[in-house]
Each structure stands twice: as C-alpha cells, then as structure tokens.
C-alpha cells in the first residue's frame, strides 16, 4: 500500500461530501429528506415519479408487494387519488416468528395534483414488477398544437 497521505484523504472526503450535497440539492432529495426519519412508513407512500410526453402524463409509483386487487384509483379534475393496501405476508405468522421486519406495510391513500388537465375517461393503469404505472392522456385542450407558419 502506498504511504497514507492525510491531506489526500481529507480532500477525498470533502469531495465526497460535496458530491452528496450537490446530488441531493439538485434532485428533489428523495433520500435525504427521509434518511433520518424513524421507519420507512413515516413518509409519503407510495413514492411517485411523473413523466410527460406530448400526449399524456405518466405516473410511476413504487409499490412492491401491493396486492393489485386492493388498488383503487380515481381521477377528479386534475387530482389523482390512489388507495391500496400492502399486506405483510400471506397467511398468519406470529409476531415472535419474525427475525427481521424492515418492509413497510399497511393501508395508504395519496392524492396527487396533476400538472395538466387529463381525459378522465381514458386513464388506464398497469401493475408490473412492483411498479404501478398510470397513463393519463391529456385533455384535448391541454395538448400542444402545432401551428404552421404560412409563407406569404
């Protein structure tokens, strides 16, 4: 091993800290905001990402282990509500049989404001690999219109 250089080590540490704060500052800090809270249930659930293209808004929610049959979605105006339940295990397990219990469980409700008006009749949802994906087509008047420039 090369000789230990304390300045280099400190410099590396400073860079690492800068990087951590840089990252969390620019990106909505999903990790930092919740890192020191007791238990994972103490945060909004499910966590969601929103995506958008010119025809629709897509919501992706992190919901592993949620029984799809308990999921209930509704759209009123531009508010999307998601309710559901995540059960701990199938069947009956005595509490004392648990060696570790880290997964969050329970019922949840979440209301989300969508950035645009959506066509409530065409909303559809898929559940795949623990992700809930809701496709919300934009209302006609919210879609971007291409305007052709006439050359006179």
């Amino acid at each position, binding site marked *: 091993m090369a000789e230990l250089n304390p300045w280099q080590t400190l410099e590396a540490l400073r860079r690492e800290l800068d990087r951590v704060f840089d990252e969390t500052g620019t990106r909505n800090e999903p990790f930092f905001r919740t890192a020191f809270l007791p238990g994972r249930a103490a945060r909004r659930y499910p966590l969601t*990402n929103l995506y958008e293209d010119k025809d629709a*808004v*897509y919501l*992706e929610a992190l919901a592993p282990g949620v029984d799809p049959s308990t999921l209930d979605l509704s759209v009123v105006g531009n508010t999307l509500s998601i309710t559901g339940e995540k059960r701990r*295990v199938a069947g009956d397990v005595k509490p004392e049989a648990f060696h570790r219990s880290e*997964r969050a469980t329970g019922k949840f409700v979440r209301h989300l404001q969508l950035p645009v008006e959506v066509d409530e009749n065409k909303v559809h949802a898929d559940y795949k690999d623990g992700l809930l994906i809701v496709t919300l087509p934009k209302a006609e008047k919210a879609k971007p219109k291409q305007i052709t420039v006439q050359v006179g």
Partner: protein
Amino acid sequence: MAEKTVATPEVPKSNMTESTRHQERYVAPPVDIYETRDGLVVLADLPGVAKDALDVRVDNNVLTIRGHARHVVPGEVTYREYELVNFFRQFELSDKVDQGRISADLKCGVLTLNLPKAEEAKPRQIEVRVG
C-alpha cells in the same frame, strides 16, 4: 442468519477524481425474515426488478440477492421522488439451512425465498416410553 453489510460492492475505485457520476448505485432492499416450523422465509422488496434482471445465488454459505431495476415509462421526467437503483444484499447462511432446497419466487416486486431447515435442525418430538 448473520448479515454481511456490503452496501456498495465492486465499485471500481479510480483515482479519487470527479468520475463518480456514472457509477452504478446499489442499495440494500428492505427484508422481512420469519421462521416457520420447516425453515426461514425471506421477503425482499425489489420494485422495478424483472425476473430476468434478478440474480439469487448461494456460494460459500453466502446468499446473495442482486437485482437491476429498470424504468419502463415513456416520456420525460417532470417530477421525481425516487430513482430506481440496483439492489444488492448478502446474508450468511448457517449450516442448518438445507442449501440444496432453497426456492425463490418473484411476484409483484417482492422476492420470496424459502430456506428449508436441514433435517437434523428440525424440531423433533420425542416419544416418552413408559417402562
């Protein structure tokens, strides 16, 4: 079942410069572990991990779970609360687990591992004979 805390494996350490941007990030998935009469059951939350992106293996008494999560949504991200990251976690198995009969099942983003107890580790009823 002891756990090895290996949070970031195999991160190629280049020479401490600004090259940290594109490293793959790994997190340890939350797990529940409970015991039944026949063995241990491990449940791990692995959202976004498809079956073919999941690798579960036992080597040298170490159980390794590794999964790669993928976004499947089209469009540009406009609001973000999480990022899908890769999952990695290792557990050290005791001899009392019958390693040949471990089974795994991935459903709704939850991995269920059944670790059956070896025959000699199972509780045994001993018949009392009255002489």
